[in-house]
């Protein structure tokens, strides 16, 4: 017996000593984060909240990273028991387990990752794998990803894998190759040039086996589907002094899919962005044209999953509640548009600048459909489109924001916006909605201990609530919010959104939060609209709910 004890003690000592040595010498570290969100919701037909049979819904995740010299490894545990409202389809999200794992070796010349990885080529027009925990989105590839940097300024990436699909992996195989050269690093004579130039190009191919899709007009004709679909893109990023220009062009081969109703037209996309900036003033213009560029690893997939590429909306991401009530959703099958941004800081001491200066920002965007002519249905080219000719108006907006520090304690931000919204971008037919939005946001630093924030918003719209449209955003709205930050750790916030004219709904909400270093706990009660919520000094995406919510996040 004594021998066993001694052996056990020796073993323990050896293990402990070895661990300590390995950790001490190579500097291994474990870091991570943990997050859990709970929801108790009651049905409310007016705001569209559903009844929760389980009484309590929970989303949780834990990320653990281990780093030791050039090696790193990561694990992610996720649990949806049962998934929060808005995570649909519920039965696919439901479950718990290891959702992500990887091993990586990295030096300044080479990074090799095996397991789940996230990667982006250029702006993501042909490939971007990423995750957004609040949208329930994760299209990570499970496979191998290599990045090689032979000389300073040159990066070559190669990857292959299968995409995550809820708790499984899709059948389609994704392979990609990308190269990027920064001329200022590679060409010695350009090292100090005012002209900064970076070129890049990438190619992505997806492989998927056959399936049976018929042509509706000729039910005996089965489509001859391409098993390999390729997409390529080239990009340029340049700046000269205060001027910048970024552009990327992408093309995709024949890719009949559920998104384009199985037509054989090739896809293409072009993005151009130009800007001028100097200290205190900047202007930027961006244009985009997207034609049949939905690219997924499974052709029959719809909804938000299994995209290989990423085509974002170019409209400004608004954060105030009423500015983002009618958000534009990008149309990967076809859209074109422009957006412009101007930011100006009126200097201190000038007529409009006052003692502290004034910040002005201006933004506008117009997005339309393509001008297309139908040439056939499923199994044909589908349609043709005119390059510079626009189709239906999808979305337009214009906003001005003035931010001003009034004195050492008060700051005011005032915003006016006008929006035109076509419900077709959300898949519903209907007439255009026209909205006017006014917002005042005042922060008051009462003293070191107490800080208050007041927000008042108004939205006037010509959309009206009817039983057939059932659009819960319709009508005219007012909103008030008070946020009280106490000391360094606590906040309390109360808000109400109320439809006062031809709309329905009254969204009241009370939240209390505690924050210490990288740990935050928030408890909320009330009716919550889904969307981006910025209270208590942090921004996060929240689902629609009616009842109690609890959230805990921590990083270590």
């Amino acid at each position, binding site marked *: 017996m004594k021998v066993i004890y001694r052996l056990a003690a020796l073993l323990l000592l050896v293990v402990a*000593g070895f661990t300590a040595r390995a*950790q001490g010498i190579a500097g291994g570290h474990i870091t991570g984060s943990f997050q859990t969100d709970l929801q108790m919701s009651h049905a409310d037909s007016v705001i569209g909240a559903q009844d929760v049979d389980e009484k309590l819904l929970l989303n949780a995740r834990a990320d653990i990273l281990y780093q030791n010299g050039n090696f790193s490894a990561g694990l992610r545990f996720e649990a949806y028991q049962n998934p929060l409202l808005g995570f649909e389809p519920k039965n696919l999200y439901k479950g718990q387990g290891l959702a992500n794992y990887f091993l990586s070796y990295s030096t300044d010349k080479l990074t090799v990752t095996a397991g789940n990885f*996230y990667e982006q080529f250029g702006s993501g027009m042909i490939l971007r794998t990423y995750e957004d925990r609040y949208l329930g989105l994760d299209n990570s590839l499970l496979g191998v990803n290599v990045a090689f940097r032979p000389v300073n300024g040159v990066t070559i990436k190669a990857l292959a894998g299968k995409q995550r699909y809820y708790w499984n992996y899709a059948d389609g195989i994704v392979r990609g190759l990308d190269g990027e050269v920064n001329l200022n690093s590679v060409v010695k004579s350009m090292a100090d040039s005012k002209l900064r130039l970076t070129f890049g190009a990438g190619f992505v191919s997806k492989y998927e086996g056959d399936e049976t899709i018929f042509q509706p007009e000729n039910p005996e004709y089965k489509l001859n589907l391409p098993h390999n679909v390729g997409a390529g893109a080239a990009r340029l990023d340049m700046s000269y002094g205060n001027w910048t220009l970024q552009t990327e062009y992408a093309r995709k081969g024949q890719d009949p899919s559920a998104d384009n109703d199985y037509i054989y037209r090739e896809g293409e996309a072009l993005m151009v962005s130009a800007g001028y*900036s100097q200290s205190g003033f900047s202007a930027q213009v961006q244009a985009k044209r997207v034609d049949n560029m939905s690219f997924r690893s499974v052709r029959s997939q719809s909804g938000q999953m299994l995209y290989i590429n990423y085509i974002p909306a170019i409209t400004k991401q608004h954060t105030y509640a009423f500015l983002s009530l009618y958000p534009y959703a990008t149309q990967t099958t076809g859209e074109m548009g422009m957006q412009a941004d101007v930011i100006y800081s009126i200097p201190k001491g000038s007529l409009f600048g006052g003692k502290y200066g004034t910040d002005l920002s201006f933004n506008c965007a117009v997005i339309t459909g393509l001008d297309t002519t139908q040439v056939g249905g499923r199994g044909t080219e589908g349609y043709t489109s005119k390059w510079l000719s626009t189709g239906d108006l999808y979305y337009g907006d214009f906003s001005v924001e003035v931010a001003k520090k009034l004195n050492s304690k008060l700051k005011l931000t005032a915003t006016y916006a006008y929006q035109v919204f076509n419900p077709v971008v959300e898949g519903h037919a209907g007439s255009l909605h026209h909205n006017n939005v006014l917002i005042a946001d005042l922060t008051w630093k009462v003293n070191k201990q107490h800080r208050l924030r007041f927000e008042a918003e108004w939205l006037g719209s010509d959309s009206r609530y009817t039983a057939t449209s059932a659009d819960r955003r319709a009508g005219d709205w007012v909103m008030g919010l008070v946020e009280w930050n106490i000391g360094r750790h606590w*906040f309390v916030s109360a808000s109400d959104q109320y439809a006062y004219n031809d709309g329905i709904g009254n969204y009241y909400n009370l939240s209390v939060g505690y924050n210490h270093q990288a740990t935050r706990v928030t408890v909320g009660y009330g009716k919550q609209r889904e969307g981006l919520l*910025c209270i208590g000094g942090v921004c996060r995406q929240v689902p629609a709910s009616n009842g109690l919510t609890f959230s805990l996040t921590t990083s270590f």
Partner: protein
Amino acid sequence: MKKIIFTIILSFVAIAGINAQNAKLPDNISLKTLDGQTVQSSVIQNDGRPIIVSFWATWCKPCNLELNTIKEVYEEWQEETGVKLVAISIDDARSSNRVKPHAEGKKWPYEIYLDPNQNMKRAMNVGDIPHTFIIDGNGEIVYQHTTFVDGDEEELIEKVKELLENSEK
């Protein structure tokens, strides 16, 4: 029996030794400069003086409040402590082109990098933003904080000063 207890205690001490050292700022993560060049995160340096790393985005109001507020006192901070603020934008392709005009229009005096696919964000366990770190002269993460409300900048500079005082001892 005593030996066993002794061994167990010794093991705990040994294991505790692991935690005595703080995690380091990752050095092999790809970031982009505002000129579009890809660089590794090891470029984040401040000659052995502290660094504040702040994760932000153009659309994040509290992040903008944090960086605007610190702008007012940044010169003073630099003179007193030699600290440098590195602002890492997690704007994705939707708004990453806007980062340079945004920062210049607002006269931000910081070193700014783009993390459009959130590689650095994941490597540093950042969830919601703003999320701010203090890195000491050896590249170790000594403090982190999420959220920003007016006045939080004072706590940040206090921590930097504490760090400098402790390192002088």
